[in-house]
């Protein structure tokens, strides 16, 4: 992939100077330490700040939620996974497509800045993961944007060097006691920072049940039971709407394999309602499988 930064800067500059959009969401370099960070610019002169490099891993689509009550038109740069996030928001009625100018970037796979930084902080000795693709990118089936007004870069092959559901199948093959033990272990490490929820593009409710105090649906203790409730609730709430961007796993400070829950639900939905991948195309009136009803829907769970 050639350096797309000049293109990104040119497009952003034009969008702003021609008044096509009011603001542009992209990435820039943090002056303090050179990390790639999300950036929001409102003047064409600032377009020179924008960059695109292999550390632009953040999904900017979630950031649109901050603008859902305004009427501003927004230019946004998206990778494959981010573009599915845009479809998610539009389909959920959270953000109208008309207010967006989407610049798609065919994604060659990103590196996880935080993981590299953690490696550099000495925890893993010499095996710094700097050359490695981020975990979430290694499972990516759609590196090319699915919705855009303009496309940059060359079409990329899917990365998916692992079978999509192989981890889920590994868990399914365990005995029920072993599975309980496995997830108990995982959930006991959760610190309930809610980063997985807040970064999630499918978690776009204005009022989240985990923030409610009257009634309090899930306790605030970090006991295995409350943590399990949190993760089971959240997995069910995004079931059928998860776009598999993998941001939840990326941001988890405890490194929990949260996609194991999401992919299990995706796998079951595939089996019960036919193959489905969330956020692949934006169609008028289309609804995710769990948001629609057909008489012939299977219902083996109900007596």
């Amino acid at each position, binding site marked *: 992939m050639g350096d797309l930064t000049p293109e990104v800067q040119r497009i952003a500059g034009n969008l702003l100077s021609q008044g096509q959009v009011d603001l542009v969401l992209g990435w820039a370099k943090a002056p303090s*330490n050179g990390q790639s960070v*999300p950036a929001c610019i409102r003047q064409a002169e600032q377009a020179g700040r924008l960059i695109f490099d292999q550390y632009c891993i953040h999904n900017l689509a979630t950031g649109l939620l901050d603008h859902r009550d305004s009427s501003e038109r927004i230019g946004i740069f998206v990778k494959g996974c981010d573009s599915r996030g845009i479809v998610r928001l539009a389909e959920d009625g959270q953000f109208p497509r008309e207010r967006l100018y989407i610049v798609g970037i065919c994604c060659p796979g990103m590196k996880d800045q935080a993981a590299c930084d953690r490696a*550099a902080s000495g925890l893993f000795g010499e095996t710094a993961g700097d050359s490695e693709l981020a975990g979430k990118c290694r499972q990516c089936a759609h590196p090319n944007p699915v919705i855009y007004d303009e496309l940059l870069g060359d079409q990329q092959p899917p990365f998916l060097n692992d079978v999509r559901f192989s981890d889920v199948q590994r868990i399914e093959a365990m005995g029920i006691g072993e599975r309980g033990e496995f997830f108990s272990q995982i959930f006991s490490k959760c610190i309930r920072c809610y980063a997985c929820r807040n970064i999630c593009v499918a978690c776009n409710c204005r009022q989240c049940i985990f923030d409610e105090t009257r009634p309090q649906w899930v306790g605030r203790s970090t006991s295995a039971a409350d943590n399990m409730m949190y993760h089971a609730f959240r997995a069910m709430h995004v079931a059928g709407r998860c776009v598999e961007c993998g941001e939840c796993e990326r941001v988890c400070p405890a*490194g929990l394999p949260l996609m194991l829950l999401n992919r299990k639900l995706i796998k079951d939905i595939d089996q019960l309602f036919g193959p489905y991948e969330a956020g692949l195309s934006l169609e008028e009136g289309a609804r995710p499988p769990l948001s629609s009803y057909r008489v012939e829907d299977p219902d083996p769970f109900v007596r």
Partner: protein
Amino acid sequence: MKSFAKSAITVVLDRLAEQTRTYVPMRDGVTSNFSPWSERRASDLALNSLNTTFSPKGIVFPQTERLYDFAVDGQRADISGTHAETGENILFGARACDRKAFAALDQVFLRRGYVDTNYKARRDGLTVIGRDCLQPGPFCFCDSMGVDPMGADGADVLLHETTEEFGWEPLTEKGQALTLRLNDLLTEKELIRPESAGCRLEVNVAGLPEKLRGMFDSPVWDELSTFCMNCGVCTYICPVCHCFDIQVMNNGSSGCRFRCWDSCMYPEYNLMAGGHNPREGKRDRFRNRFLHKLEFFQERYGSFGCSGCGRCLVTCPHSLNMVLVINRLGEVKVDAS
């Protein structure tokens, strides 16, 4: 100076852990934490790593802490079982930044009138074995926050690190007591203490608290908080953040009251009983966190609410962090009028 060979580290830890639960930096999958030595495999020992993913504050201030139990029977209510831990613990290998953070927590929980019983019990029972920090990491900025990476503040024993040895310098009575326990493992040796390489990352905090007094309404807070998602990662991995909530686990006629960490990033943190939320937007919550650390904490306790450990630099999902914020705040021009 008394010392032991680095190769003998497991023997020393075994000896310490024999009588007292000893927390050491341990690798745990893709993260690291201060964990009890006896519970983990020696191969997970992460003494060579820089800061652990999670700070050691949970040892004196657990994330969830049961306070007391209650039972209700008709008109009668019984309260029982205070769960404050009075046992002794050892924290092995704490760096200057984390010890500085303990000093900040002490200010909050012990020094300003009210003494927090549970915190005090845990803190009094804790012996801190500090260590020199020869090679601060790429994200460390403790010396900018007034912390000396080679300093002895807050340590009962200080480990001087050389290539082959750990020098053992007891500094307090608690430290002396541990020295007695290890006496046969320590040998007297002349050690040359290397210099610390110092922090590569610098921030300028001179005059910042005063400057911030006039910046409450600055538009810079909107700019800085644009991509803050209001998750609680930074507050939970921060060794100084100490906000908590007290909640009830109710099981019908019985239950318990517990304390758990809370985060100023959460909407319900600021929610008042009447339903009003004085810090409704994320800008307000973001501003509060940084003003607390850089202005209010300094005004009340005379030090910053940040020890420069750098954890937020590698954990924030959107790469916002203390260094970025301090630098940006420094750039902003404030109208003197």
